[in-house]
């Protein structure tokens, strides 16, 4: 390549990185905004809001990096939507009226099971299968998305979600190992 072409290639690379950053930030912000729906009707929104922001940053970083990171974050975010939005839906249909209620941790546990099943079922297919980066991004995104919704039910909600996630993921993983 000539000097002028090298210079143009450097500018094109810069344009690519800037474009990719902008693209990833927009999607990270959208993911945070979707997760923030879980804050509706939440009496103490600070911790869940921090989780939503963390989720946005994580999704943006993984999408910017691309490859297995991006695929993992996408799947983790989608799977995490169940424990993220179910508690808000439960509050919306007035399953419980007080600031603390025992039904919400159960809802989080159920959401966690759904997320775990989805994560393991989709993640065990190629090309994600066996890629640590994929699983790391997927687990982090699912936990942050789930925590955004389940922190609204207190630590019991987060604990329920984590338990459900593990239980849901265990079944397909064990089945795959046995096969």
């Amino acid at each position: 390549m000539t000097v002028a072409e090298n210079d143009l290639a450097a500018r094109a690379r810069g344009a690519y990185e800037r474009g990719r950053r902008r693209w990833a930030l927009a999607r990270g912000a959208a993911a945070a905004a979707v997760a923030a729906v879980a804050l509706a009707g939440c009496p103490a929104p600070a911790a869940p809001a921090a989780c939503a922001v963390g989720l946005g940053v994580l999704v943006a970083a993984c999408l910017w990096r691309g490859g297995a990171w991006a695929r993992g974050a996408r799947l983790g975010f989608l799977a995490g939507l169940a424990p993220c939005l179910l508690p808000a839906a439960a509050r919306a249909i007035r399953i419980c009226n007080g600031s603390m209620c025992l039904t919400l941790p159960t809802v989080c546990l159920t959401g966690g099971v759904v997320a775990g099943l989805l994560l393991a079922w989709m993640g065990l297919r190629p090309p994600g299968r066996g890629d640590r980066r994929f699983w790391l991004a997927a687990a982090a995104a699912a936990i942050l998305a789930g925590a955004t919704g389940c922190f609204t039910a207190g630590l019991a909600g987060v604990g329920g979600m984590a338990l459900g996630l593990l239980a849901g993921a265990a079944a397909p993983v064990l089945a795959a190992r046995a096969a």
Partner: protein
Amino acid sequence: MERTGREALQSHLERLADGDRDAFHPVFVRLWPLLRGFAARCLPWGEAEDAAQEALLRVFARAADFDRGREALPWVLGIAANEIRTARQRRRRRREHPADLLAGRPDGGRSPEETAAASELERALDAALATLRPADAATLLAYARGERPDLPGPTFRKRVERALGRLRAAWRLNHDRR
């Protein structure tokens, strides 16, 4: 572009959209000649080069947005066509308002030789203007100052063109008999 080239571009662009930075060079090497050739068919040389560069930067800036379901070549050429359209519009605007460009031209730091040559040129221009009809000279002076007499734009442009033609003829008569 032949079929194998298209397929290679498709696969490299998909990899680039997926964040694989190793696909950057193959995409660049394929796209640059393609965009330069495409722009050269639609624009004069200098402008074609600029438009091709702009299109190339735009393609890379939007590479993350590239959808696997789409064909790469039409997507790239669509972006290039947009850039070419913009370059054509710019050129049209430049032709319509050349005085804007003259007004924006920097005039800093002339050397004494340049100043002498410029004043000689001004004298020669004054002499050529003096040979024109007063109406033509007034039109050209107004045009040079960026003033617009109370006339419709196309009429004024036509008068400027006519006066410039006469000025050129007068100039040739006095300075360029070869």
